[in-house]
């Protein structure tokens, strides 16, 4: 039995077009719509509902769900499934994400498309299991060893849990890279209205299969059929007999562990295939920024109280706006730089003791003051608290 994406079956399984569901479930829906046919996962709060949702749905569309023995095995199986030809995903939270770091790096090194949904909580260690936070925003960027670029998206609504999961699949296929949906416990467990897009309301990007002559095919160099740095994909079983290794390898895929040039060339391509497209990948929402003198820069659940604080500030005649990052990595450097030229102050609300604020500071111009508005302990910022930050920095 082989999976084939069957829109009629998928829609039958998803049910009504308009629903009232949790963010976790919306991410599972997004996977199903994107054509995910393999899910390997391990239970962890607040992400378990993603796995539970997909465990119910996947067999009904002829996909495969396996509860693996741990998160290391989950991502391993997902990567294996991708080489076997599947669109594959997993879901987890902080402790599991920490365990995934080695195989996350393996997926980057071997250019394996796959999606990791991280419904974040806090830490270190087991932390507050049932409460949300934004604990892994830097781990997703720097958590695996070596030089990497990351693609990470952050949803602020249940609808975005679905939409950005589809987007995560699309970007993973386009760049042959593991893409992370960095939700947080708040959004994952939030219930709100969800509209399921029709087939003609969504775009799906598919893997570009290897087609050229087998003797000439180079599985780990620039594409040989298109003008970009993403090689075509030689799915296992299609006769290309590809050797895939996490060791530094040459364009053929053969180990080249002691060759400086090969390593430099490989790693540079792996990083720049993404960073070259930084502007294209930038996906932000701008709220009341046109005349703003102070801007909040935020993402995920924190954007919700921030938006309320902006409304209060405006009512009080303060020129305040919000920049919301939907793509957090690769970091929207130019957008931040431009914003910092326009406003005097940037405040970064985050549900941690400061992660993305560091990047905001790094790319802001000198004259702009960048400060953090942290909230930890499993609670969201209150709009009043954020308004308080504004007043204190007047």
């Amino acid at each position, binding site marked *: 039995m*082989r999976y084939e994406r069957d829109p*009629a079956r998928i829609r*039958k399984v998803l049910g009504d077009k308009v629903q009232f569901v949790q963010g976790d479930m919306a991410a599972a829906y997004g996977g199903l719509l994107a054509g995910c046919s393999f899910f390997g996962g391990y239970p962890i709060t607040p992400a378990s509902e993603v796995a539970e949702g997909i465990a119910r749905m996947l*067999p009904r569309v002829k996909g*495969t769900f396996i509860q693996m023995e741990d998160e290391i095995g989950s991502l391993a199986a997902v990567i294996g499934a*991708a080489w076997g030809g599947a669109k594959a995903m997993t879901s987890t939270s902080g402790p599991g994400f920490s365990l995934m770091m080695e195989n996350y790096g393996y997926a980057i090194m071997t250019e394996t498309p796959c999606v990791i949904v991280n419904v974040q909580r806090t830490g270190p260690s087991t932390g507050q299991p049932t409460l949300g936070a934004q604990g892994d925003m830097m781990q997703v960027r720097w958590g695996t060893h070596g030089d990497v670029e990351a693609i990470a998206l952050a949803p602020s609504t249940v609808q975005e849990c679905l939409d950005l999961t589809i987007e995560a699949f699309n970007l993973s296929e386009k760049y042959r890279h593991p893409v992370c949906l960095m939700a947080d416990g708040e959004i994952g467990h939030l219930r709100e209205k969800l509209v399921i897009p029709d087939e003609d309301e969504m775009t799906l990007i598919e893997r570009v299969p290897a087609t050229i002559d087998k003797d000439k095919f180079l599985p780990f160099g620039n594409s040989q059929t298109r003008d970009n740095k993403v090689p075509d994909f030689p799915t296992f*079983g299609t006769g290309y007999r590809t050797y895939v290794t996490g060791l530094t390898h040459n364009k053929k895929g053969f*180990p080249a562990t002691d060759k400086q040039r090969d390593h430099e060339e490989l790693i540079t391509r792996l990083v720049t295939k993404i960073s070259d497209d930084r502007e294209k990948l930038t996906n932000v929402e701008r709220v009341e920024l046109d005349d703003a003198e102070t801007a909040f820069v935020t993402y995920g659940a924190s954007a919700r109280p921030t938006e309320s604080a902006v409304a209060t500030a405006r009512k009080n005649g303060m020129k305040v706006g919000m920049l919301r990052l939907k793509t957090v990595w690769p970091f929207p450097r130019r957008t931040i730089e431009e914003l910092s030229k326009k406003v005097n102050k940037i405040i970064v609300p985050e549900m941690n003791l400061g992660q993305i604020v560091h990047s905001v500071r790094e790319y802001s111009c000198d004259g702009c003051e960048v400060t953090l508005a942290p909230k930890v302990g499993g609670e969201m910022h209150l709009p009043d608290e954020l308004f308080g930050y504004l007043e204190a920095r007047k």
Partner: protein
Amino acid sequence: MTAMIDAERLRKKYLRDGMLPTIFCNGCGHGAAFDYAFRAFEELGLDMDKVALASGIGCSSRIPGYINADGLHTAHGRALAFATGIKAANPDLTIVVFTGDGDCTGIGGNHFIHAARRNIDMTVILLNNFIYGMTGGQLAPTAPIGSISTTSPYGNIEQAFNICELAKALGAAYVARWPIFHPYQPIKSIKEGIQNKGFSLIELLSPCPTAYGRRNKLGEIDSLWKWYEDNTILIEDYEKAMDYGTEEEKEAVRGKFQVGVFQNVQKPGFFEEYDKLVQRIIAKEDERKGGAE
């Protein structure tokens, strides 16, 4: 055709171009493993386009690099979990995993346990050399008591894994152990393992003269051979000695490695069962709602 010429022919057919020489030291047992696999592939008439290899990290885990087939050289210990995913995505592929004792039962022990328990249809060729070879000879969970390694310089005091007994207890469909010196039984077992529709484990006792043999005074290649001859016993002979032997005869075999086929049962593999589950759900659904239009 003599055996030598035949081995050359098989190497031509199954070796991956451009990967030689191998990383293996002189006298390393691992090199024989892919010759045996080639012979098994040949006798089964496998279409190598439909074979996917996987491995972890270690000297033994380098083998898929030398074989002309799709191969996933993964992270240390994780090969079986990766292989599970490959098989899930394309059940038509024949999955063969090459792994070491450290890779499979040290860092990867949990994946091994669960792949065997789930009875995933794959054939695992585990090269047991009682040591972490690639990293220079540290203690492995398979090292016999008293073994000297760089991290057990005063002798190992830990009880070793009995990998085949473990696999058997987990309900693996096919379990065998052989010393790597004799080609015929390993080849036969690799064939039987691939033919078996469930999880197959073939443990090959393979010498590492560089990192184990030298330190543990097993000597050069000739005396290494003898060590394996002296320290292995067929399962039947072991059982006979244990059932009917004198105390001295029992004592003489007690510490030896039993070799042979420990288990060979036919039962549906995980994905066969999964398929049935999906058929059942889909049939019910189509019946209820009148098809998926």
